[in-house]
């Protein structure tokens, strides 16, 4: 036998047994071309972050996603076609339109009657590519206004999406998670419909050590939307179901997951004290306090909000946060460069100051007075308003000695300066604080000293001016205050007004006034 044929024969016994060499060669060439094409695309994508077109007959790249230019008539024709191929093509084109950066045509797609087709595609388990495109399209329609989400729900998407959560294809079930998140986020009505359809167990089934981070991010966000909204709050049974896995997510370090987990807790603590109680009992408070110091603003913000909600609860709830070290974190946040953080931190502080005097003592011990005075002086108005509440709460619940310390820290001077604001409510809160200070002064027999101090600091002048305030309540309150505490005996009695003497020390022989 000639050597050539022997070689051929031997080869055919092994790897390409029974195959035609000419066809094989053709196949190798096609594969090479595909390889080169994929490599070229890979390079382009890396350089310009562009998406690959995946329509079978389209050449490699569309550099500008905004020039995606499919006609709705074509899409309608394709989607209503009998063949899966056409349906997939049409659905994908719709998906691309709906994914445009600017002005995606949500309404046009809905008005074209495409939603019912998309929803029917969701249940075609034999055609995962079609399911995926449909799920993505539905996600984006549901991301619109309430009207858009309503259309999605009314076309029956919810049961189909919940079924898709069980898809063996991760990217498909993940897309369903996202779509359901958009529906839940619309408001309490749809949120509760999803809960009734048993969405929670189906979602929780996907939390495992093997779940990819990207998937967990979407999952956490959707869970947070199930915790969101009031009037009504989510049902207690639903909250109890998803709390344990939610708490587990706090062990992770991915900032997106932590961010949405914190938002979920902030929604759940935004309510009555029994709701707060459920959360505090999970033991999550120390982790929340820790996250208040997170370097990422997106994590810090909801953690602070959650703690702020918790300290608006009972004294016990507040004590839990103090025991977890919240008073060590707050000074930093009161000096944070972002005004919203300062405001929220001050609001939290005001609620801690509304606790009992032992907690107020802890405020003093942990050095919260200096930063409080700083925000009273320099904070933006919303922050200053929270700071004024802090002072008033402090003076209401604090012991006389604690109130003295507050005055000594400069807080009185600072609130006197704020008497010039236009906001009548704030003025009234300041006057209440001053009244409380007088109550404390009475216990120490030092009311005259306080009056003189206030006069020194320019307070009397301001209070007198407020008698002309347009607001009746302000006018009344200032009148009362002047009558009660500033009615000096005008018969030329000398007043000993040594500066800095108003330290509320028990002194003798200086009480020359009568009220």
């Amino acid at each position, binding site marked *: *036998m000639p*050597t050539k044929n*022997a070689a051929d024969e031997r080869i055919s016994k092994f*790897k390409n047994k029974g195959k035609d060499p000419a066809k094989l060669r053709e196949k190798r060439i096609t*594969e090479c071309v*595909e*390889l080169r094409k*994929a*490599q070229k695309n*890979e390079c382009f994508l890396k350089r310009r972050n562009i998406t690959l077109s*995946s329509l*079978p007959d389209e050449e490699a790249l569309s550099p500008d*996603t905004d020039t*995606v230019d499919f006609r709705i008539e074509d899409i309608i024709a394709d989607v209503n076609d009998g063949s899966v191929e056409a349906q997939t093509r049409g659905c994908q084109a719709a998906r*691309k339109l*709906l*994914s*445009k*950066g600017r002005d*995606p045509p949500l309404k046009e797609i809905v008005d074209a009657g495409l939603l019912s087709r998309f929803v029917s595609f969701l249940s075609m388990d034999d*055609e*995962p*590519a079609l399911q995926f495109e449909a799920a*993505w399209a539905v*996600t*984006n329609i*549901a*991301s619109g206004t309430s009207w858009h*989400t309503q259309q999605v729900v009314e076309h029956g998407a919810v049961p189909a999406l919940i079924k898709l959560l069980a898809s063996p*294809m*991760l*990217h*498909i079930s993940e*897309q369903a998670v996202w779509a359901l*998140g958009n529906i839940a*986020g*619309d408001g309490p009505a749809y949120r509760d419909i999803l809960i009734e359809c048993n969405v929670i167990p189906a979602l929780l089934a996907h939390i495992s050590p093997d779940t990819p981070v*990207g998937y967990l991010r979407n999952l956490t966000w959707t869970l*947070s939307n199930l915790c*969101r909204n009031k009037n009504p709050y989510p049902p207690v049974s639903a909250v109890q179901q998803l709390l344990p896995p939610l708490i587990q997510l706090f062990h992770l370090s991915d900032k997106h997951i932590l*961010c949405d987990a914190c*938002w979920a807790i902030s929604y759940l603590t*935004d*309510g009555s004290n029994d709701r707060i109680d459920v959360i505090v009992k999970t033991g999550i408070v120390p982790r929340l306090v820790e996250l208040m110091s997170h370097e990422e603003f997106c994590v810090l*913000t909801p953690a602070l*909000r959650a703690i702020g*909600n918790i300290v*608006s609860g*009972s*004294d016990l709830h507040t004590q839990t946060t103090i025991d977890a070290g919240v008073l060590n974190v707050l000074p930093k946040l009161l000096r944070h460069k972002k005004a*919203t953080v300062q405001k929220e931190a001050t609001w939290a502080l*005001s*609620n801690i*100051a*509304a*606790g*009992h005097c032992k907690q107020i003592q802890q405020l003093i011990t942990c050095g919260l007075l200096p930063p409080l005075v700083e925000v009273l002086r320099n904070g933006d108005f919303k922050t200053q308003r929270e700071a004024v*509440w802090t002072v008033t*709460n402090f003076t209401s*619940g604090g012991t006389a000695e604690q109130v003295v310390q507050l005055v000594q820290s400069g807080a009185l001077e600072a609130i006197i300066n704020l008497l010039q604001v236009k906001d009548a409510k704030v003025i009234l809160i300041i006057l209440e604080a001053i009244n409380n200070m007088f109550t404390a002064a009475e216990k120490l027999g030092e009311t005259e000293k306080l009056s003189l101090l206030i006069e020194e600091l320019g307070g009397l002048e301001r209070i007198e001016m407020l008698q002309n305030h347009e607001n009746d309540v302000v006018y009344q309150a200032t009148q009362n205050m002047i009558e009660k505490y500033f009615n000096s005996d005008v018969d030329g009695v000398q007043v000993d007004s040594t500066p800095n003497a108003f330290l509320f020390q028990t002194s003798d022989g200086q009480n020359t006034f009568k009220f």
Partner: protein
Amino acid sequence: YKKKKSKKEEEEEEEYVVEKVLNRRVVKGKVEYLLKWKGFSNEDNTWEPEENLDCPDLIAEYLQSQKTAHEGKRKGSGDADGDESKSKKKKDDNEKLRGFARGLEPERIIGATDSTGELMFLMKWRNSDEADLVPAKEANVKCPQVVISFYEERLTWHSYPSEDEKKDDKN
């Protein structure tokens, strides 16, 4: 925390134990507290005048709970300062996933290249026409059998003509 209550009919004085103070009221200028008795149901709760009681701790606890209930604590500002999490999100096109991230099942490897610096396989996925590149390192772990098939299909043996001729001669 006890309270002695003497009944007219009986000679002895009986002792009942206060479990909790539930409420407070003022009747004809006198302060009264609603008490839950230990060992009795809530149906047996009674109002008792302040001066009959000897449970200062329980009273203080009640007063404290009332204090925080309506003094000072202010609930959530609810200020959506724009920092809140989005309630709805649209999925944009540049989110397109590639390789194993697409979550598809590997069908077979149809090519290999190392021009990117690392060995990459061109992967054909089940239920998709779109093949793309995956790192060999990842494929080796996630679908080793598919990788093995790829290599097996391409095994070549180098032949030595002298040996073959000898074999042929023998035949």
